[in-house]
C-alpha cells in the first residue's frame, strides 16, 4: 500500500505535465482532456466549471459513468496510457489492479471537479460507488474508501446547537458514511486515524459515523493479529505461492518440508506445471516402515480457502492401526496400575511405543499433501513420482487413487506400470 501511494503521487506529477500539453492541443473536447484538467486544476485550486462537458448534460451522473469516462480516456490517450502502464509492476494482474484503483480515485476526483461546492446527489453517487467496488476489485483498498469519504462537504454538517446534537443531523449523509464504514469493515479493511480526522471534519465528534468508526477501530486492531494462520494483506497472485501458503496453513507438523516441483505436461510440450507438496521427515519415516501389503490412498480433491481464493488439495493417506487408539479398559488399567516400564528399565518400553503421532488420526494416517496446478489425475501420478526420490519405498507399495474429481474411477498404480517418462526438476521452496 505504501508503494502504491508513492506511485500515485509520482503519476500525478506526470499528469500535471501531460495535462498542460494536452490542454493546448484539444481544449474542451471530451471527458478525457477535461479530466486531465480536473486533475491538474484540483491541485492548482483554480478549477473552472465551464471546462466540464458532462456538467451540462447530466449533473446527476452516477459513479459508473464517471468511471467509464475516465477509462475511455485512458484507453484513447496515448500519453496517459504510457503513464498508467505501471512499469514497476511485473505481473499483469497486479498492473490491472493498480490501474483500476487509479481510475477509481480519478473518477471520484472528476466527480468532485464537476460538481463543485453544492455536489448534488453525492450520497447516491457514493452508494453507487460502494456497489461497484467489489466488481472493480478495489474493495480491500483503504485509499479508495478515503476518496469516497472526501466527497462529503466539510464543516457544514457539524451540529451547531443542542437540538442538532439530540436528533441525528443530516441523517442520510450520516447513514451513508456508516455504510462506507460498514463495507470497509466487512471486507476486513482497517481504517487509520486519517479516516477519523475526516469524519470529525465532516460530522463533528459525537455522531453515528464516529461511533461506528470507534468500534471498528477498537475491534479490528485487536483482531487483526488473532488469526494463527495469518495471510498477507494482499494475497500473492502467483499460484505457486498461493499453494505454498495453503499447504503451510494445513501442515501441522513443525518439521514439515514444503517442496515445489515443476514438471512438463508430456514429453513434447515445454509448458511446465507445478506440484507443491508438503511432507515431514516423520511422514517419510512412516512410509519407509509401511508394509507392502497395505495400500496407500491418494484422496481428494478437498477444498481449502485462502480468504476468498479456493485451492484444491490432495492427501496421501493410509489406514491407521486401530490398536494405537484403544484405551485400556478400567480392569486392565487397574491390573497394570503403577506397573511402569521406564526408559531406564528396558530397551523398548511399551508405553513409549504406543503413543500416536500427530499424523496418525483415527480416520487415517496422513502421509503427505499436495496442490497441483491442474488438479488432475496425471498430475497426481507425477506427484507420486516426485515423492519417490525421497521415498523409494513408494515404488513397491500399491497406490490407490480415489478422486472425487474429475473422474470417479479408482486407478491402481504399480511400479511395473510406471515408466519415468516425465522429466522432473527440483526447485527449492519459493518462500
Amino acid at each position, binding site marked *: 500500500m505504501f508503494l502504491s501511494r508513492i506511485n500515485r503521487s509520482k503519476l500525478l506529477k506526470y499528469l500535471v505535465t501531460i495535462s498542460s500539453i494536452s490542454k493546448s492541443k484539444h481544449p474542451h473536447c471530451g471527458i478525457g482532456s477535461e479530466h486531465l484538467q480536473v486533475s491538474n486544476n484540483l491541485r492548482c485550486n483554480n478549477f473552472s466549471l465551464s471546462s466540464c462537458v458532462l456538467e451540462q448534460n447530466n449533473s446527476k451522473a452516477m459513479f459508473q459513468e464517471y468511471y467509464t469516462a475516465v477509462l475511455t480516456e485512458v484507453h484513447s490517450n496515448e500519453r496517459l496510457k504510457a503513464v498508467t502502464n505501471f512499469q514497476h509492476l511485473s505481473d499483469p494482474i497486479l498492473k490491472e489492479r493498480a490501474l483500476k484503483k487509479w481510475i477509481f480515485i480519478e473518477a471520484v476526483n472528476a466527480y468532485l471537479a464537476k460538481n463543485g461546492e453544492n455536489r448534488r446527489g453525492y450520497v447516491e453517487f457514493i452508494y453507487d460507488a460502494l456497489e461497484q467496488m467489489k466488481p472493480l476489485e478495489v474493495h480491500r483498498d483503504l485509499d479508495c474508501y478515503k476518496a469516497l469519504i472526501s466527497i462529503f462537504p466539510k464543516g457544514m454538517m457539524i451540529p451547531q446547537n443542542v437540538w442538532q446534537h439530540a436528533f441525528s443531523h443530516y441523517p442520510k449523509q450520516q447513514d451513508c458514511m456508516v455504510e462506507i464504514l460498514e463495507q470497509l469493515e466487512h471486507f476486513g479493511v482497517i481504517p*487509520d486515524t486519517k479516516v477519523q480526522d475526516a469524519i470529525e471534519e465532516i460530522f463533528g465528534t459525537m455522531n453515528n459515523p464516529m461511533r461506528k468508526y470507534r468500534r471498528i477501530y477498537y475491534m479490528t486492531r485487536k483482531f*487483526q493479529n488473532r488469526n494463527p494462520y495469518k495471510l498477507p494483506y494482499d494475497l500473492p497472485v502467483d499460484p505457486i505461492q498461493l499453494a505454498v501458503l495453503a499447504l503451510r496453513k494445513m501442515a501441522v507438523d*513443525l518439521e514439515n518440508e514444503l517442496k515445489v516441483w515443476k514438471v512438463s505436461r508430456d514429453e513434447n510440450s515445454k509448458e511446465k506445471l507445478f506440484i507443491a507438496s508438503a511432507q515431514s521427515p516423520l511422514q517419510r519415516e512412516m512410509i519407509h516402515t509401511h508394509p507392502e501389503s497395505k495400500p496407500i490412498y491418494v484422496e481428494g480433491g478437498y477444498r481449502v480457502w485462502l480468504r476468498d481464493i479456493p485451492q484444491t488439495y490432495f492427501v496421501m493417506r493410509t489406514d491407521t492401526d486401530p490398536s494405537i487408539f484403544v484405551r485400556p479398559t478400567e480392569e486392565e488399567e487397574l491390573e497394570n496400575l*503403577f506397573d511402569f516400564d521406564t526408559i531406564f528399565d528396558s530397551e523398548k518400553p511399551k508405553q513409549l511405543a504406543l503413543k500416536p503421532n500427530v499424523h496418525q488420526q483415527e480416520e487415517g494416517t496422513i502421509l503427505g499433501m499436495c496442490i497441483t496446478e491442474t488438479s488432475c489425475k496425471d498430475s497426481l501420478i507425477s506427484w507420486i513420482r516426485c515423492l519417490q526420490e525421497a521415498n523409494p519405498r513408494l515404488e513397491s507399495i500399491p497406490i490407490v487413487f480415489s478422486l472425487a474429481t474429475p473422474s470417479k474411477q479408482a486407478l491402481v498404480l504399480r511400479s511395473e506400470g510406471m515408466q519415468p517418462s516425465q522429466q522432473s526438476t527440483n526447485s527449492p521452496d519459493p518462500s
Partner: protein
Amino acid sequence: MLKIISLNGLKHIERKFKREVLSNLSESNNYAFLCRHCSKAVQQSKTSLPYSKGQDAKLALKQKGKRQKNIPFVKELFLGRFDKEMLLFPELDKYEDVEHLNELIAPVERFFTENVDSQSIDIEGEIPKELIRQLGELGLFGQQIPHEYGGLELDATGYARMAEVTAMDASVAVTFAGHQAIGLKGILIAGTREQKEKYLPKLATGEQLAAFCLTEPSSGSDAASIQTRATLSEDGKTFHLNGGKIWITNGGIADVFTVFAKTEVTDEQGNREDKMTAFIVERAFGGITSGKPEDKLGIRGSNTCEVHFDNTPVPIENVLGEVGGGFKIAMNILNSGRFSMGSSGAGMLKKLIGFAAEHAISRTQFKEKLMNFGLIQEKFSTMAVTTYAMESMAYLTALNLDSYVEPDLSVEAAIVKVFSSEGCWNCASESLQVLGGLGYMKTYPYERYLRDARILMIFEGTNEILRLFIAMNCLKYAGKELKEFQKLLRNPLKNPSAMFLFMRKMSSRKPKKVMHLNEELHPTLQHEAWMLEQWTQYLEKAVQKLLRQYGNSIIDEQFHLKRLADMAIDLYAMTACIGRTSRSLCMGLKNNDHEKTMTQLFCKEAVHRLENNFEAIMSGDQSNGDDLRRQIAEKVFTEHGYAASHPLTKNKF
C-alpha cells in the same frame, strides 16, 4: 554422650532385629550397633557369608563382613519410611585404613600440584604423553582394577577420595573417568576371567587406554536407539561392526573400546529382534578410524572425538556379558560411576574456596576488607555449605556402596551427580564473582574451572534425564506397594474401609512425630531431625497425591517428576549432612561446631526448596504455573522461536 548412644542403641537393636529377620541375614551381633559411633566396624562382627564352598575363596574373603543387600533409602522415602541407619554416617573400619588411604593419596596430591600444569593443558588442548606415562606409573589408570591384574584395587570410598585429588585438573579427571569409570568398567562388571586377564593388566598401567562408545549422532540420552550394527559372520565366530560413534572421551588415544551395537537376537518364540550387545574392541582389530579431536568449551585437554567402525571384525569371545544384554550393561556401567562426581566436585570447590578466600581477605575496597561485606559473606557461606553437602552425600554413598555385596544405590548415585554438578557450576560462578573482573581473566584459573564445570551437568546422563531416573525409579518402587490400596480407593463405595482410612490420613494435615529420628543423633540436631521427619512425611503425601491423580500416566508428567526428584535430592542431602555432623559432634572432630552451623543453614534452605516443590505439587497445574509453561513452550515451538512482538512494534493502523 555414651549414655545417649547406649539408650538409642537399645531401641535401634530392637528394630534392627526385625529387619535382620526380614532380609534373611542369619546372624547379628547387637553389640555392634552400639559401637557404630565409637568407630568400631559393624561389618567385622557380621560374618554371615552368602557364598557356597565352591566359590572363589578370595572373593569370599573380600566380601567378608559385607551385608548382602541394602534397603533402598531414597526409594523408601517415597513411601514415607525413613531408614534410620542412614543417619549413622558410615566410616572406614579401622584408623589404619584411613592412614593407608592418606598414604596413597599424598604422593598423588603432590604430583598434581607440582607436575600438572592445568593452564597449558587447557591452552594446548592436549594432555602431554609424558604426563600420561607418569600418571600411569602412579597407578592411577587402574584405580578400581584388582591387585591381581596390577591395579590399585580401590573400593568406592578410595576411588572417591582419589577423585577428589585428581579433580584438580578437570581434563585429567575426565580422561581418567573415560578410561576407568566407564571405559573399562564393562570388563570389570561383566567380563569373563579370560577377558579380564587379557585386557586389565595393560589397562591398569596406562599402557593402553580405554574408551566407552555409546553415544551416536541419533542417540544421546536415549541409549536404546543406537544405529551401529554388529552382524555375525556365517561361521558364527566373528561379529562385524559398522557404524559411527560421536563425542567419545579418549576416542583418539584409546586402544580398547567398549562398544555398544545392535545385534539380531532370536527370542524363545522364535521372533527376531534387534537388541543391544556390548563388545570389547581393540584398535588393532582394524577398521577403526577416529576423527580429529573436538574443540570444546571446557575440559579442553581431554580427547573427545568421533570413532567410526568400518566392518571391524570382533571375535565372539569379545562379547561382554551375553548377546542381547547390552542395554543392562550400559545402564549398570553408567549407574555405577556417578557417585564419584560428588567428591571430585568437592575437591575442586575446596580449592576454589581457598583461592577466593585469600582474595577476600587481602582485597580492600571502600577502606574495608572484602571479607567484611555481607554480600561476599553470603557467597562464601553458600559455597561452603554446598561443598559440605556434596562431600557428605558423596562419601555416604561411597561408604554404603562398599558395605553391601549387591548395593541398590543407583538412585542415590544419581542424586549425588545431579546435586554436585549443579553445585559445582553455581559455586564456580560465585567464586569467580568474588574476584570480579580478575576472575574473568584467563590469567586466573576461575574461568577455566567454570568452563570445566559446565560439562558436569551434561555428561554421564544429563541432569534432566537423571531427575527422571530418580523420580521414576522411586515411583516404581512406591507404586508396587501402593497399588493395592489405590485400587481399593478407585472404587470408594465398594471399599468403605479403605476410604475411611484414606480420609483419616488426609484429615491429619500436619505430620506427627513418630519416627524419633533425634534418638539417632546428637542432641543439638533435634530441630534438623524434626525437619527431616516432617518433610519425609510430606514427600509421601506428595507421592500419593500424584499417583492418585495421574495413575499410570505419572511417568509423562515431567514437571512433577522433576519436583519429586528435587525433593528427594534435598532430603538425601539433608540426611547426609545431618548424619555426618552428628558423627563429627559425637567424635569431637576439629571444627565440628562449624559443621553444625553449615548443616543448620543447609537444612533451612533445603526446607525452603522443599516447601516450594511440595506446594507446587499439591496445588495443581493451574496455580503452580505448569499450564502456563506448557502454553508458552508450545507457542515458542509453533513459531519456531521467540514469539512476542518487538516492544517497539505498532499496529499499522
